[in-house]
C-alpha cells in the first residue's frame, strides 16, 4: 500500500460525525490545551474517531476531525499516515498485532506469528472472512522485558508461545479473552523463576 495516496476501502462511508457522547469527550480533550493550541488535540481526537468507527479511520473521519479542529485537511492526513496505530483501512473486530522486533524475535515471536497465521488461516495484513481478526506485524511495542508480546485492543498479552497464542485467539473468538499481561506464571515483569533481589529477610 502506498502511504501517499488515499485508498478507498470497502465500507468507506461518505460521512462521519462524532456521537453526542464523543462530542462531549472531544470538547473535553480540546479544552485541555491552551487557547490557540487546540490543534494539539489532533492525536486524541483521531483515536476517539478510530474507536468510534470500529478500529479504523475512513477519509470522512479524517476530514471531520480536521474540520472539528479547523485544521487544513492535509495536516490531518500527514499525522494519520505517519502513525502506524491509525488504521486507514478497515480492520477486524480484534486487531492482533504481533511484535517481531529483535527482543521478541529472540524470544520466539516467529512461533507466535506462525501460530496466528495457522490458527486464523490468514497472512499478515489480512482479515479473516468472518471479520473477527486482522493480523499485523508491528515494530517494538516497548514491552521487551515480557517478550514476545502481542497487542490486541487496549491490552498486551505477554510471555507468549505457540500454545498460549492459540489459547488467546480462541479466548478472543469466544468473547472470553484471557487476563491481559504475562501468560506464564509471573507477576508483571518480575523474574519468571522467582525473586532474585530482596530475598534476604530483615535487611
Amino acid at each position, binding site marked *: 500500500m*502506498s*502511504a*501517499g495516496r488515499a485508498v478507498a476501502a470497502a465500507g468507506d462511508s461518505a460521512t462521519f460525525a462524532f456521537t453526542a457522547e464523543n462530542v462531549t469527550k472531544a470538547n473535553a480533550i480540546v479544552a485541555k490545551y491552551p487557547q490557540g493550541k487546540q490543534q494539539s488535540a489532533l492525536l486524541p481526537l483521531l483515536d476517539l474517531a478510530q474507536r468510534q468507527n470500529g478500529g479504523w479511520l475512513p477519509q470522512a473521519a479524517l476530514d471531520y476531525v480536521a474540520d472539528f479542529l479547523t485544521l487544513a*485537511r492535509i*495536516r490531518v*492526513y500527514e499525522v494519520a499516515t*505517519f502513525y502506524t496505530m491509525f488504521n486507514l483501512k478497515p480492520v477486524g473486530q480484534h486487531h492482533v498485532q504481533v511484535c517481531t522486533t529483535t527482543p521478541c524475535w529472540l524470544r520466539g515471536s516467529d512461533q507466535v506469528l506462525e501460530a496466528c497465521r495457522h490458527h486464523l488461516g490468514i497472512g499478515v495484513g489480512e482479515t479473516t472472512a468472518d471479520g473477527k481478526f486482522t493480523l499485523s506485524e508491528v515494530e517494538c511495542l516497548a514491552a521487551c522485558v515480557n517478550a514476545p508480546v502481542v497487542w490486541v485492543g487496549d491490552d498486551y498479552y505477554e510471555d507468549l508461545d505457540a500454545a498460549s497464542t492459540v489459547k488467546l485467539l480462541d479466548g478472543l473468538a469466544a468473547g472470553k479473552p484471557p487476563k491481559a499481561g504475562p501468560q506464564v506464571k509471573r507477576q508483571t515483569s518480575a523474574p519468571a523463576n522467582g525473586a532474585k533481589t530482596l530475598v534476604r529477610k530483615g535487611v
Partner: protein
Amino acid sequence: MPSLTINGKQITVDAGMTVLQACEAAGVEIPRFCYHDRLQIAGNCRMCLVEMEKAPKPIASCAMPAADGMVIRTDTPRVTKARNGVLEFLLINHPLDCPICDQGGECDLQDQTLGYGMDHSRYEENKRAVVDKDLGPLVSTHMTRCIHCTRCIRFATEIAGVEELGTLGRGEHMEIGTYVEKALSSELSGNMIDLCPVGALNSKPYAYTARSWELIRTEGIDAHDAVGANIRIDARGREVMRVLPRLNEDVNEEWISDKSRFAYDGLRRNRLDQPYVRRNGRLEPATWAEALGAVAERMRALGGARIAAIAGDMACTESMTALGDLFRALGSPHLDCRQDGAALPVGARAGYVFNSTIAGIEGADTCLLIGTNPRWEAALVNARLRKRYLGGGFHVFSVGPELDLTFPVERLGAGPETLGEIAAGTHRVAKALQGAKQPMLIVGQGALARPDGAAVLAAARRIAETCGMVRDGWNGFNVLHTAAARVGGMDVGFVPGQGGRDTAGILHGAGGRDLGLVYLLGADEIDMAQLGQAFVVYQGHHGDAGANRADVVLPGAAYTEKSATWVNTEGRPQAAPAAVAPPGDAREDWAIVRALSDTLGKPLPYDSLAQVRERMVRIAPWFARSGEVTPAAWAPFGTEGKLGAAPFRSPVTDFYMTNAICRASATMAECSELYMSGGKAATGTHG
C-alpha cells in the same frame, strides 16, 4: 550584532541571521537543498553541515543562529566527508535518469553531486520507487526523484496560502503528496517547479520539449497583467519554449503567476502573420503596401474628426506613443487606452497608479480593498498582501465581491453604499482606518469601470485623504490595474484630447456613423457589435475578436517579440528586448504605425526605437528612469457624485482567460476548465 569567524575570517552579521547566511555574507558557499531564503527553515536535507568549534559533530548551518564568538569552518576534511555522506544518502533512492530528466543541466542535485559528492556509488540494493501524483495540468511529478526537501510543501503553505501538500507516511515510505488526489488550487503553483531542487516537480507543458542548455535566454517583462513581473524568456529558434521568473524584489520577488508562466503556448496559435484586407466581406491576404494603402485611403477620406483609436490591454507604450502622435497629427482627438471604460483621471497620475508600490505593501498595517479581487487581478500583489499578513498585525477590509485571498479579509459590503458610508466617516471602519499607522486602500478596475466610476474614485480619494493615507513619505492610495498597457497609455496621453471621445463615446460614434474609422491597437475586449458600420483597422498579434471584426488587419508583435516598454500598476516603466522574432510578415508595432504615417504622407518624427523612447521621455520624464518608480504628486482627481447601487464586480471572472494570448493557449483552456468550473472537474480520471 554577533561577530563570528568563518574559515579564519572575522565577520559581523545582523542579529537573527543564521550561520548559513553569515557564511554567504563572508563569501563562502554552502550547499543546500531544503533551505530557501523565502521559506521557513526546515533543516531536513543536512546538506549544509559545517563544523563549529566546540561542537561534538557538524551542525546544520541553515538552522543554527549565528552567535557572537562562533568559530565556523567549512573547509575541513570533516565537512567534506559530511557533505559526501549526506549526498550518498540522498542518492540512495535517487534514480540515475539525468539524461532524460527535464531538470538535467540546471539541477541542484546534479551540480552539488559534481561539486561535493563521491565519484561512485556503493549502493547495490534496489532503489525505492514512488507512485507519481497528479497535481493538475501544470505541474508534472516524478516522485521517485524526490529528496524530501519539503520546499514545495512550504511554498504551498506559506507563499501560495493553499495547504494542500504534505508529507505522507513515514521513514522509507514517506511521500510528498495531497493524499486525496487533486490539482493544486493555486495560481502560483508553477513556482514550485523552480523551487524543486531536483526533477521531481517539472513543468507539464514544457516536458521533454527542450534541454536547458540549448535555449536562448532573454530578460523580459510580463504583459499578462499589470504587475510587470520580471521574466526570463527561454527560446529555441523562433519559438518560446518556456517562461521563468527573474528576481526583482520590488515587483515579483522571485515568483510569477501561472498565467505568466504557462500561457506561452498561446503565442504559437491563432497568430496574425500577414496583413489582411476585407474584400467582398471576406478577409483576404494582402501585402503590407495594400493594407497600409487601404487604411491611409480611408483615413484621408474621412479626415481627423471622424477617425478614432482604442488601445487594448497588451499594447506597448511605444506603439501607443506613435499611434497617439499620428492621430493628433491627423487632427483626431478621439483616443482612448481605457477599453474597459474605467474612470482613470487624465493628468492626475497619483489617481491612477499604485502609489504605495508593491513592496510598500509590507509597510502597511491596514488595507481597504474596493471592488477588487487581487488574487485574480494581480496574483503577485496578492502574494505580497499575504506576505504582509503573515508578518502579523495586518487587517484587510473589503468592499466588493466575495473573496478567498488565502488570508482573512473582513467583507464590509458589496458595493458603493458601504463605500459611501466609509467616505462620509459614518462607517465604523472609517475609525479603524483613521487609527491605523500606515493605512492603504486598493481600488480595482471593477469599481472604476462603471458609470459611477468617477464618483467611486472621488470617494476613494476622500477616504485616502480623511484617513491619513496620503502624507509625507507615505501614499496609501492605490489603483490596481489588470492590463499591462493601461498605465503606459495614460502616461503617454493615449486619452481623449480636447473635445475627444472616450471608449464609450467612440463606440457610440461608430455605431451612429459619426465616426467612420476605428483603429484598434490590440483592443479585443470591447463589444465589437457596437462598432456598427465603421471601417475597423485591427493591429495586433492574435486572430481574436478584433481581427474578426476588422476590415484591415495589420499583424503586430506579441510581448515576447518586440523591444518594448510597459508601465506596471505602480507606474514603473520597464523596457525589455525582443526574445524572438514575430511570425511571418508581422512587425514591431511602433514600426507599423511609423510606416502608416509614411503612407499617409505625415511621417512621424522618429525613425528608430531610440527616437521613439526619446519622444516618450519628452512626454513623461519618468520614462528615462526605466525600472524605477517616480512618485506621483498628489492632485485632485475623481468627480464627487452620486454612487450607483450595483455591487462591485471584479473584471476578471476567469483568471486563466484574460487576453488574446490566453484564449489561444491550450494550457490556459485546460486550467480554466478545471479551476474555473467551480472545482467540480476532477483530475486524473478526467478527460
